[in-house]
């Protein structure tokens, strides 16, 4: 191994390079990334950066990535696996003997007519700065999408007294946590002054020049001076869709060592993937699962780097327990396990005044996940117990 190329300079790309150097690799490393910035952390964007308690510099990912050739502001356009080259947007080619696919995702945009000013998405530093700058003194903000990013942004803005309404077709915010927890999360937001329109579809975002409002399918008009579209994300996989790799809903499928599979299901030993662009065979998922959490990008990238340096038969399997956190007001939401597999949620412990909560998620009676609000110790127990369940059970 002489020439390792990483496409995508986000968390996964950065951790991969660090882990490669930690493992003793001393060959060349090239990182190609579309963004002009050195790798930075996304979780603070909807929290500290939006709130103004972090600067952009404080969002930089910690630690060193030694001796890397950075090709920033450069997009990969094609992957040629026969020649083992990545073709970039300036026509140049980068040859590899080891490759990491780490191009992550981008915010899904509103598909429909849009006013030219005042409609935003939030995925990168530039998005956050533009959204922040648009929120004037008596801004009325409508957030389309009650997922984690929508809810975090609502919490950050409510702390400053900004008028916030959240719309979603789902019946509860953050639906992956199930209806019981979702209803409690909605109450926490409502107590802080957020208005919800749940179970409601959006018909149009209105306004000629600047946005004036969001029209719901039932006819109601929510007045707005700023709209955040937070309706999920799309994988940045266009550059390798014709490279003959196994794909599922736009992401590349890996085996348990994080090496990618080709369209016939055979392992491609010199190509790995990690983070939001990759799916791997989690034992509670049907087939491979793409887990869009910080800890998943960290764990996949760390393992991919170590495995790339090993012969195929010496490689180890990913043992990552999906975990995420989200900070909203004074509530620390944490999860462990593969929540999409849960069929029944049970609230185990609750103190509505604090507020705190602990819930277990089961599938066919088997514990597959847990969620905690302000119970930072209890959730660690679940991280451990879910890690120790034997594979295949």
């Amino acid at each position, binding site marked *: 191994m002489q020439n390792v190329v990483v496409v995508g300079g986000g968390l996964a790309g950065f951790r991969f390079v660090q882990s490669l150097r930690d493992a003793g690799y001393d060959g060349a490393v090239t990182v190609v990334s579309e963004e002009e910035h050195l790798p930075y*952390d996304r*979780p603070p964007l909807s929290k500290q950066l939006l709130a103004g308690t972090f600067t952009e510099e404080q969002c930089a990912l*910690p*630690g060193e990535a030694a001796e890397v050739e950075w090709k920033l502001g450069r997009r990969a356009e094609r992957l040629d696996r026969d020649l083992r080259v990545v073709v970039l947007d300036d026509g140049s080619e980068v040859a590899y003997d080891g490759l990491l696919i780490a191009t992550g995702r981008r915010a899904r945009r509103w598909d429909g007519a849009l006013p030219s000013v005042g409609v935003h998405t939030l995925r990168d530093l530039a998005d956050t700065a533009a959204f922040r700058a648009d929120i004037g003194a008596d801004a009325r903000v409508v957030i389309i999408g009650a997922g984690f990013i929508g809810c975090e942004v609502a919490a950050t803005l409510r702390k400053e007294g900004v008028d916030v309404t959240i719309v979603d077709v789902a019946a509860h915010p953050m639906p992956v946590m199930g209806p019981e927890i979702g209803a409690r999360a909605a109450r926490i937001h409502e107590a802080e002054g957020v208005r919800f329109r749940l179970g409601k579809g959006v018909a149009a975002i209105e306004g000629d020049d600047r946005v004036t409002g969001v029209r719901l399918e039932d006819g109601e008009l929510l007045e707005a001076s700023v709209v955040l579209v937070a309706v999920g994300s799309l994988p940045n996989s266009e550059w390798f869709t014709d490279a003959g790799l196994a794909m599922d809903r736009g992401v590349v499928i890996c085996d348990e060592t994080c090496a990618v599979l080709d369209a016939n299901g055979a392992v491609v030993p010199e190509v790995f993937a990690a983070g939001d662009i990759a799916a791997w065979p989690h034992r509670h998922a049907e087939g491979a699962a793409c887990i869009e959490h*910080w*800890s998943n990008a*960290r764990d996949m990238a*760390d393992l991919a780097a170590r495995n790339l340096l090993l012969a195929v038969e010496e490689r180890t399997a990913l043992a990552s327990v999906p975990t995420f*956190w989200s*900070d909203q007001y004074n509530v*620390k939401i*944490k999860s462990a396990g593969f929540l999409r597999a849960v069929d029944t949620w049970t609230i185990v412990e609750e103190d509505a005044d604090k507020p*705190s909560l602990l819930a277990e998620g089961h599938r066919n009676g088997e514990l597959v996940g847990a969620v905690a609000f*302000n*119970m*930072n*110790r*209890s*959730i*660690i127990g679940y*991280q*451990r117990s879910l*890690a120790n369940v034997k594979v295949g059970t």
Partner: protein
Amino acid sequence: MKITVDTDLCEVHGDCVVAAPDIFDIGEDDDVVQILNAEPGEEYRAAIVQATKMCPVAAIKIEG
């Protein structure tokens, strides 16, 4: 070896507790992690190095 945690950075993610349970702990209501053993023996080094790598905010430092 001496362990310190930057309490301004720590967000009680708890990854360090998973990696090195003999060294770090978190109470249900804590705002920052507790260091159970700030000057542990060499036998804990591997677990603590793992904890420093797992921490999402790189709050843990090892001296010596």
